[in-house]
């Protein structure tokens, strides 16, 4: 209680964040080794096995040609949506509660995108030719097919990856400069290069502020478009359960929903293991909880509409899809998804729930499990049940697929663990800014008088 009420000074934040980068204990190395080992074992080795033998190592078959690879791909892109998008929106609305958490949230975005990009190579049948999807001049004068929704995907994700990297880098330049002064050796060189010689002059702050604001303005429509485009991989087909215009908003809402739940998880871990208890507080969890509640209600609404339009359409194909989803083989997964994503988040109506850390952690993990199930169901229940009943089939994931999915979380964790030791995971200058604000405002009216 005492510690929370003590007024934090600039040096406290500075020391805390620099310490989190420079001081490394054995627990960190153990965590890094475990996640790195798991990544290698569960993601890379099965993938190399699959590269050698063929996609047959996965569980896909004739009607179910898309499986968990695509579901995971969409899940990871969904997870990437909240960090940068939320950071940009809250920056433009000048909210102060974003300041402590946005750096790690943006990092979550970046690494989710990296994992999703790796998934493309896992999913595709001949990944050694995956570079053909990029427009580059070549001897055959062959260019990719720009009419294809999958190609919009490639362009959108490339843009989003570039944009997120630039955004997180730009926001970190002042912090790199601050850390640079406290480090020696190779770290010093690295931070000197990364901080571009930032000195903190008023001109530099002014330019950074404008550049950052313009980037935020550009990234918001980009993020909305990225997941809409990903949804169009499905929605532009004429498969009965997938060919719906609601897919673009559905996926965007689902992405922000799942991403925000991911932020809650990451914030809990950062708070507990990096010593940031004083910066990531109940207020943050409260606000994130409110956001999650709104998104959960929106998601429930869209799902209900999907059910309604499926039933109302009356056509046999749509109705067959719906009944397979609700009452078929994968029905337990569907109802689990409804419980985790539509029913359980209603607990967040109570403020006590929202401000308690462990229950929020459990709920955020449950929401992500539910959202993963949603993506899985989209793939597994729509493709095996299309128009021609004789061609119906059944898809279930194989061991290789499940292992790669688990491994992708390990890859993400490894990347994030490396991140916390290189980037300052809490934005120093923004948190410092929140400290003086009331006094500063009073002082400005003094200093601003004709001098």
């Amino acid at each position, binding site marked *: 209680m005492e510690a929370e009420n003590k007024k934090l*000074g*600039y*040096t406290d934040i*500075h020391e805390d964040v620099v310490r989190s980068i420079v001081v490394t204990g054995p627990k960190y190395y153990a965590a890094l080794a475990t996640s790195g080992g798991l990544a290698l074992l569960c993601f890379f080795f099965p993938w190399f096995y699959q590269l050698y033998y063929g996609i047959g190592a996965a569980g896909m078959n004739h009607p179910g040609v898309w499986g968990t690879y695509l579901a995971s791909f969409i899940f990871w892109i969904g997870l990437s949506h909240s960090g940068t998008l939320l950071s940009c929106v809250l920056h433009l609305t000048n909210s102060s509660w974003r300041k402590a958490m946005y750096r790690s949230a943006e990092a979550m975005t970046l690494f989710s995108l990296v994992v999703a990009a790796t998934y493309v190579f896992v999913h595709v049948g001949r990944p050694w030719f995956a570079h053909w999807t990029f*427009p580059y001049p070549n001897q055959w004068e*062959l*260019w*990719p097919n*720009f*009419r294809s929704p999958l190609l*919009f995907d490639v*362009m*959108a994700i*490339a*843009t989003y990856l*570039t*944009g997120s990297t*630039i955004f997180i880098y*730009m926001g970190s330049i*002042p912090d790199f*400069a*601050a850390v640079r*002064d406290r480090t020696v050796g190779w770290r010093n060189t690295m931070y000197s290069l990364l901080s*571009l*010689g*930032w*000195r*903190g*002059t*008023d001109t*530099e*702050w*002014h*330019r*950074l*502020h*404008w*550049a950052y604001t*313009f*980037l935020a303005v*550009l*990234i918001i*429509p*980009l993020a909305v*478009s990225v997941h809409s485009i990903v949804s169009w991989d499905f929605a532009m087909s004429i498969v009965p359960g997938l060919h719906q215009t609601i897919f673009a908003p559905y996926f965007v809402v689902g992405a922000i929903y799942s991403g925000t739940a991911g932020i809650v998880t990451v914030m809990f871990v950062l708070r507990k293991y990096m010593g940031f208890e004083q910066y990531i507080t109940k207020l943050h969890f409260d606000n994130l909880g409110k956001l999650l509640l709104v998104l959960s209600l929106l998601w429930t609404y869209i799902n209900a509409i999907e059910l309604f339009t499926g039933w109302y359409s009356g056509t046999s194909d749509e109705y067959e899809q719906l009944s397979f989803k609700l009452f078929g083989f994968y029905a337990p997964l569907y109802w689990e998804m409804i419980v985790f994503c539509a029913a359980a988040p209603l607990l967040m109506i109570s403020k006590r729930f929202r401000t308690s850390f462990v229950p929020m952690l459990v709920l955020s993990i449950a929401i992500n499990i539910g959202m993963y199930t949603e993506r899985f169901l989209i793939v597994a229940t729509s493709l095996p049940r299309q128009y021609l009943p004789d061609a119906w089939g059944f898809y279930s994931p194989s061991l290789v697929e499940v292992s790669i999915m688990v491994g992708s979380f390990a890859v993400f964790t490894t990347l994030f663990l490396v991140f916390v030791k290189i980037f300052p995971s809490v934005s*120093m*200058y*923004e948190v*410092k*800014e929140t400290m*003086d604000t009331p*006094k*500063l*405002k009073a*002082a*400005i009216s*003094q*200093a*601003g008088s004709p*001098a």
Partner: protein
Amino acid sequence: MTNCVIGLFHDPQSALVAAGELKSAGFETPELMSPVPIEGVEEVLGKKKSIIKNFTFFGGLIGGISGFTLAAVTAIIYPHPVGGRPIITIPPYLIITYELTILFGILFTVLGFIISSRLPAIRDRIYVPEAAVDKFAVAVTCENSEHRSRADAILNGAGAEQVRDMREED
């Protein structure tokens, strides 16, 4: 070699007051170095012009044009009739245009930032390590020792914790 006087302050308001006084005393516009962006700088030191928005705009424009050109021209080079659609289809190409508009807007904004903030700093410039942690620094260039003592007086009068003398390598 220009001579520079730097005053270190504990809080931003006194640094702003000192900067304002220095400016009205006739010195060249002082530089304020701080660990956080100080609000109210523009009222005291004058409005800053930002050219970044021009970069963003032109970046977006170039991106839009190149997006559509890329999609349409590459389709014409090797016509590949698919799905009973025309070779130049507008809705899909608009999506490519949109993505490239944003991509080039972002890249040009970064370029604008780098150009207008004169970063990366190739040559050494005045730097106060404390300004990155918790102190606010006001740096002003002085021609001769008389100016220097006047600047000293102003800075101390505004409540500087420390006044330093630094030479800026030019």
